């Protein structure tokens, strides 16, 4: 019964948020963009609203959070109720506060990691496609070898060797994911470097760096942006999984993955509190996936 009820409530919230966000976007958007938002599916407008909400919470964390990030505010494992609206964790820290700071830490770290993976992966990928020859061969075979090992397993291996800290976590995940970005960037760029305008730019005497930045990158943007959204989801889930396994972001830094791990014992008593940080991770990835799905559908020009 409660399951059915909670699904209905979730669906209701989904429709209200989706409709409100679509209406808001339509009235705010400049005139020539209005048609884009009119045909927007509800899933996409819901996703956009959720992403904006997460960014706002992450930026405003110290303002909206009732307590400090590591502040002990009461007894351990307090139930829900004022002044700790979502109870406390095993050290007596306020759950709501830590959830809010988690938006800043977890999402921030995942974003930095994805950006790093993208800078390295797309630069090398486009460069390999542009130069070709033995450089392309060596880089591609090297990336193939790395990609033959499952991502999570390879990250675990690298974390064993370099030790577990936030910095190594970011570098390791960025390195592993940049191989996937490299593949896409290279295949996209290969289609572009055959174009006549690249030939013309080469004849003008443009260098490799300028060719990549001014000629190839602007034309490779659409698939790369969609890939950025998907890649962010993978990175975000990977970091959360590693933190959940105790190998990622460490306490006292508030982080959703490790919050689930710390409070997991509550589940066996029928308390849903540990599901909140896990749900926060799930909601953001769902939102990003919805928006990316819409963008891909739009870019492919499909009108079913």
């Amino acid at each position: 019964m409660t399951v059915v009820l909670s699904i209905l409530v979730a669906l209701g919230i989904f429709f209200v948020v989706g409709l409100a966000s679509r209406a808001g976007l339509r009235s705010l958007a400049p005139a020539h963009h209005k048609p884009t938002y009119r045909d927007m599916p509800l899933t996409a407008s819901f996703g956009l609203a959720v992403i904006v909400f997460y960014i706002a919470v992450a930026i405003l964390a110290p303002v909206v959070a009732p307590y400090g990030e590591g502040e002990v505010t009461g007894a351990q494992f307090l139930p829900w109720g004022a002044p700790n609206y979502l109870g406390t964790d095993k050290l007596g820290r306020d759950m709501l506060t830590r959830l809010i700071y988690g938006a800043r830490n977890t999402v921030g770290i995942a974003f930095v990691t994805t950006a790093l993976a993208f800078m390295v992966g797309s630069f090398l990928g486009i460069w390999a496609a542009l130069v070709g020859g033995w450089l392309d061969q060596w880089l591609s075979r090297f990336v193939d070898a790395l990609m033959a090992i499952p991502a999570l397993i390879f990250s675990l291996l690298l974390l064993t060797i370099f030790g577990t800290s936030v910095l190594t976590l970011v570098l390791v995940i960025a390195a592993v994911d940049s191989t996937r970005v490299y593949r896409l960037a290279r295949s996209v760029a290969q289609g572009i470097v055959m174009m006549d305008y690249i030939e013309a730019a080469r004849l003008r005497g443009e260098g490799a760096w300028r060719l990549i930045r001014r000629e190839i990158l602007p034309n490779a943007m659409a698939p790369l942006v969609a890939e950025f959204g998907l890649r962010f989801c993978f990175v975000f889930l990977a970091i959360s999984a590693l933190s959940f396994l105790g190998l990622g972001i460490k306490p006292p830094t508030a982080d959703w993955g490790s919050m689930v791990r710390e409070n997991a014992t509550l589940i066996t008593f029928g308390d849903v509190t540990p599901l909140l940080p896990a749900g926060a991770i799930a909601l953001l990835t769902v939102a990003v996936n919805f928006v990316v799905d819409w963008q891909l559908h739009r870019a492919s020009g499909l009108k079913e």
Partner: protein
Amino acid sequence: MTEIWRMISQRLLLGVLTLFIISVVIFGATELLPGDLARELLGQSATPETLAALREQLGLNESAPVRYWNWLTGVMQGDFGMSMATKMPISELVGTRLGNTLFLAFYAAALAVPFSLLLGVLAALWRNSIFDRASNALALTAISFPEFFVAYILILWLSQSGLFPSMVRITDTTSMGERLYMAFLPALTLTLVVTAHMMRMTRAAIINLLASPYIEMARLKGMSPMRVVLRHAVPNALSPIINVVALNLAYLITGVVVVEVVFVYPGLGQLMIDAVSNRDIAVVQAIALIFAAAYVLLNLLADVLSTITNPRLMHRK
């Protein structure tokens, strides 16, 4: 027939080559450290004596190619070396746990593959209906969930009411029926995680074909939509479907890591996580190699199977 065997042996050779490269990467990764492994493990304050002792124990005094050769020949004979943390031979640690992990992965696959193929075919058959839209949105949602979220929801829902145990205790004497019962929740978690992707790809592969002229011909003959999809579309969509199934089975093998930790399942994944936190590098290398080998094997199998379903692939010019 001989051509199939030739192709299989070709792919097998390629697979062995890939595995060799992977073993070099897995072993060589320790060489990336600025100092050496002994200094990294003991920290800056270690005395020269303890450092020398650990180097001796790890065999670091020999050159890297020699150590790699010793390791590789050991692995070939089933000897992965000693675990530093537990002082036990790794092959002993890995032995029964590998069986448990494979059991869980096959269990999940046995649930997930028929389920997702059925859903995919139905979604393609009733495309753009409520069923299609709902299953599509649900699939997108399920792909985005972290494994532990799905696992804890299932525990809260199915284990709180006492239907299924939330912890798996498997010993040598556990009977098959009990195993299936106890491993149900972890298997169901993995099923939910991989079903979405397989279902979406099955749907896409079938819908891609539905625009072909021969499908239109079949429809004009007055065939029922169900028969058109099952008799004409599915056989030609098999190759992409097999590939995505294999990809997801390979994902299952690594996905077990998180699920095993949630359900305290005595498998390879949990052993690996313990080894990573103890920085027991020999164990991590051994398990990484096993997982990577399974990954390569599954991809190989998919390659061979999809070629067999589409004979044109064998006579490429």
